């Protein structure tokens, strides 16, 4: 079988890729292809000209200054195994290690996961809680977009046509003295592996020496048209210990933060309950160390 594709262009550097994308408005970038090939095969997407971005050297993962910088073409497998990611963004390492199964992780890229803009994209919640920004390049320059502002709706981003994500930066914000960073991700689906999340949730905070939480950030996937932050639940937890009354109140407040829908994977009501359970579970884990 051949996919309905008329040309695959194979640029060797970023500049060449950007001009190929600029020259042909119908050209679409392809990285791992784990979303795009599925869409092309099912004729859910028309993309006759592909620009393969696999040879542009965009797969580096490194600490640069005050940020952890992950190339857009880094695979989920390399992110999950990276010592730097596990140290500075453990929730992202966990999420990457739960995208599909291992062979998918060896192809699927971070840039593709974000640009595909599924509300269930597993790397989105941990990037939202980490305050990550993407760097996007176009022929005449580049710009930075907070991951929070990248998503427009299901399957759509605010990237301009021909604009390429080149990397994702996670600020290395230190925690106060004596405090410990907690950074966790959990997803729920009918099976542990090879499933698209019914709901996913990330929590990032500083656990202070007195047992209270500071700088609490919560994000939820698959519970709104885009992955979202959860300000109501965050403010309930700020300055309080993660167990006890705050834990129950936060799970309730979370309901204001989300707007799930009924779809093939679950009804909205189930998603609401599941999001509360996931938050409760993570807070339980955090309060028990």
């Amino acid at each position, binding site marked *: *079988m*051949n*996919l*309905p*594709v*008329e*040309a*695959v262009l*194979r640029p060797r550097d970023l500049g060449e890729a950007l001009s190929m994308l600029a020259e042909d408005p119908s050209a679409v970038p*392809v990285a*791992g*292809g*784990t979303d795009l*090939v*599925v869409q*092309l*095969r*099912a004729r859910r997407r028309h993309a006759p000209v*592909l620009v*393969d971005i*696999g040879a542009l050297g965009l797969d580096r993962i490194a600490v640069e200054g005050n940020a952890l910088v992950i190339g857009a073409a880094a*695979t989920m*497998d390399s992110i999950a195994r990276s010592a730097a990611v596990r140290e500075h963004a453990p929730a992202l390492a966990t999420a990457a290690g739960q995208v*599909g*199964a*291992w*062979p*998918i992780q*060896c*192809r699927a890229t971070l840039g593709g996961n974000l640009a595909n803009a599924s509300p269930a994209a597993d790397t989105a919640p941990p990037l939202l809680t980490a305050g990550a920004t993407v760097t996007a390049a176009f022929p005449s320059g580049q710009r930075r977009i907070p991951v929070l502002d990248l998503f427009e709706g299901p399957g759509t981003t605010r990237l301009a046509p021909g604009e390429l994500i080149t990397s994702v930066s996670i600020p290395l914000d230190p925690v106060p003295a004596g405090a410990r960073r907690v950074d966790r991700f959990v997803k729920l689906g009918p099976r*542990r*592996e*090879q499933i698209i999340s019914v709901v996913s949730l990330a929590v990032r905070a500083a656990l202070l020496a007195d047992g209270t939480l500071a700088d609490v950030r919560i994000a939820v996937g698959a519970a709104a048209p885009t992955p979202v932050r959860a300000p109501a639940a965050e403010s309930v937890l700020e300055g309080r210990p993660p167990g006890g009354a705050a834990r129950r109140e936060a799970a309730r407040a979370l309901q204001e933060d989300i707007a799930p829908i009924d779809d093939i994977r679950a009804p909205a009501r189930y998603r609401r309950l599941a999001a509360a359970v996931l938050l409760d579970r993570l807070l339980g884990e955090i309060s028990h160390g």
Partner: protein
Amino acid sequence: MDERIVVRLVLNGEERSFRVAPGRRLLDLLREDAGLTGTKEGCGAGECGACTVLLDGRPVPSCLVLAASCDGAAVVTVEGLGGPAGSHPFQRALVASGGVQCGFCTPGLVMTGAAVLEAGVTAPADQARLLSGNLCRCTGYVKVFEALRRAGEDGDG
């Protein structure tokens, strides 16, 4: 239209060159252009693992990989896994453990399993997690996991 694309591979250790349609999947290049029909197509959508091959040493679903993206890469299929010594230790352990029934999943399964061993993963729970994308409707997995554990322990044996 449909300008053919040259794809050079080190395929099972041998340098090969193919001229393929731009929309060719790696799976079809292997099965139809290279005649290596060991690799199977199950779902065609990345979900079953039957089409798994090693691309530059990593297991990937060849049904989702564009052949055009593989120019210059090393590909290993089930036909090339064992090398001159015969079959791979995991293949032998699968046979010995009774981990093969209809055999449709086996070519993909052995590629992922070989990569698990190559990565030095020995904890049974981790081995099972890494194999979770290779679906098998016959064996119930117990003997498959047992074979992988054995192959890991025996090294070459």
